[in-house]
């Protein structure tokens, strides 16, 4: 953790897909142990920005990044940056629940095994703790050896959150984590985020403005690759400083 209380900071971040500029001059500071929401219309760059923080954009051919991105105190785009270590520190939850086609237990043990974080005899304990943290333990304690693919969608998404917790990430990135879930399950995941933010910094990309309003402490509004406005969620939704922001949150475009 950094001294400043800032988990992620970007400075004049530009990102190009080939000749197309997807992000322009992003300056953003994500505070620790809060939920920060990124909102904006489709194609505004919010998911791209999220995938800068764990460098998942590197998997796409022809991506170029300039500017600085600090996670904690580390410049993650510095030459020689350790990507595996970065992704250990910055966990990600995807739009569609994507548990591995393994047992519930092995899904959570995967991160431990990959990063050799604990001796095998401690796995039971760590798996239990991770499942407790996402409130799945009571439902799944007798189903640890079942395939994760047999779970309900909501349980799968909780499991996807649980499997990054043993890595003790500093940041949890969530890319529209509720878009495949029904409204009840969505509320449950939002409640879970409130619980998790006591220990983790959460950045969530969402299409759903009500979700941002309900679940986040800070909101950034993005449009055409630019961060138009960033502030506390209460202020963004009641007194937006930019006309563009106001038009978007009042539903005039989207």
């Amino acid at each position, binding site marked *: 953790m950094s001294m400043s209380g800032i988990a992620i900071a970007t400075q004049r971040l530009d990102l190009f897909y080939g000749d197309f500029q997807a992000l322009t001059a992003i300056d953003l500071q994500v505070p620790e142990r809060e939920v920060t929401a990124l909102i904006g219309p489709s194609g505004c760059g919010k998911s791209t920005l999220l995938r800068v923080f764990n460098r*998942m954009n590197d998997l796409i051919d022809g991506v170029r990044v300039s500017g600085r991105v600090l996670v904690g105190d580390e410049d993650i785009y510095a030459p020689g940056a350790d990507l595996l270590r*970065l992704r250990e520190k910055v966990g*990600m939850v*995807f739009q*569609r629940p*994507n548990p*591995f086609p*393994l047992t519930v237990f092995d899904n959570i043990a*995967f991160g431990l095994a*990959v990063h050799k974080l604990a001796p095998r005899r401690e796995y039971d304990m760590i798996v239990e703790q991770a499942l407790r943290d996402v409130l799945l333990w009571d439902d799944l304690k007798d189903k640890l050896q079942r395939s994760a693919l047999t779970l309900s969608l909501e349980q799968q998404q909780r499991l996807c959150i649980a499997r990054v917790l043993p890595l003790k990430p500093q940041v949890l990135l969530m890319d529209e984590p509720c878009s495949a879930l029904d409204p009840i399950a969505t509320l449950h995941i939002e409640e879970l985020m409130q619980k998790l933010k006591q220990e983790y910094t959460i950045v969530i990309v969402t299409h759903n403005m009500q979700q941002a309003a309900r679940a986040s402490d800070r909101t950034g509004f993005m449009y055409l690759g630019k961060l138009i406005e960033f502030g506390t969620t209460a202020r963004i939704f009641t007194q937006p400083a930019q006309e563009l922001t106001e038009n978007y949150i009042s539903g005039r475009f989207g």
Partner: protein
Amino acid sequence: MTPNRLRKLKEWLIEKAILLSGVFSVIFVLLIFLFLLREGFSLFRGESVGDFLFGKSWYPISDPPRFGILPLIMGSLLVTLGAAAISVPIGIAAALYIAEIAPGRLKEGLKAGIELLAAIPSVVIGFIGMITLGPWIKNLFNIPTGLTALTGSVTLAFMAMPTIVSIAEDAITAVPRQYREAAIAMGATKWQTTWRIVARAARPGMVAAVMLGIGRVIGETMAVMMVTGNAAMIPSSILQPVRTLTATIAAEMGESVQGGAHYAALFAIGIVLFVITFLINGVADLYLHRSRR
């Protein structure tokens, strides 16, 4: 007849024609099996099933003839296991390479090459095995003949490889991208992702690929007959000549008397082969279905 009724009649005819073709293909398999049974079973009027399956001597034209196929079963088993030991690791590794690592153009080239390998007639592979591999093995191990079980295994490994690689590659490619993405986002290396997640997810398909490859090896006749030396004795090492079930049928069918005991014994061997391949295909099918679920 009104146009409407005509159309209905046409539909009915087409439907029944397709049904009939489906039924016929099943009937043909059943008929082949019944024919095998009828021709083969007459052997067991004079011979017990135990003596046939576990008898150690195959002297079909001596007097009295002896029809013990244990040496032939051992021959088939040895050649098949040897071929599997060579082709499975290489085939699976090749499939992983093509599906996960090879860049675009190389990938297409390799896939085309593998398909070409599948298209080479078995007699050509047998020929190459006989004139190049055989002498090489003879010199390498300093043994009297290069036509051995090992030669057969290597030759057959070439024939199993295309089946194993192409089916396993399909199974690996079919693993959803999101699994890989999730593993990489957790900081797994490319290898950890490939081995722990992708290969695990594709495992049923890979088992099926191996089974079908082995099925091909057990049923193969021509190439194996050309390179294994065809001595019907129980081998004590992989460097000895062996004779397989298939090669025995192919080599002796022409000289047996139709309706005689030798003739029946060859058909009984056919039944054994049929049962073996049926079981292997059954297992492969089971795994293929499981992978689709």
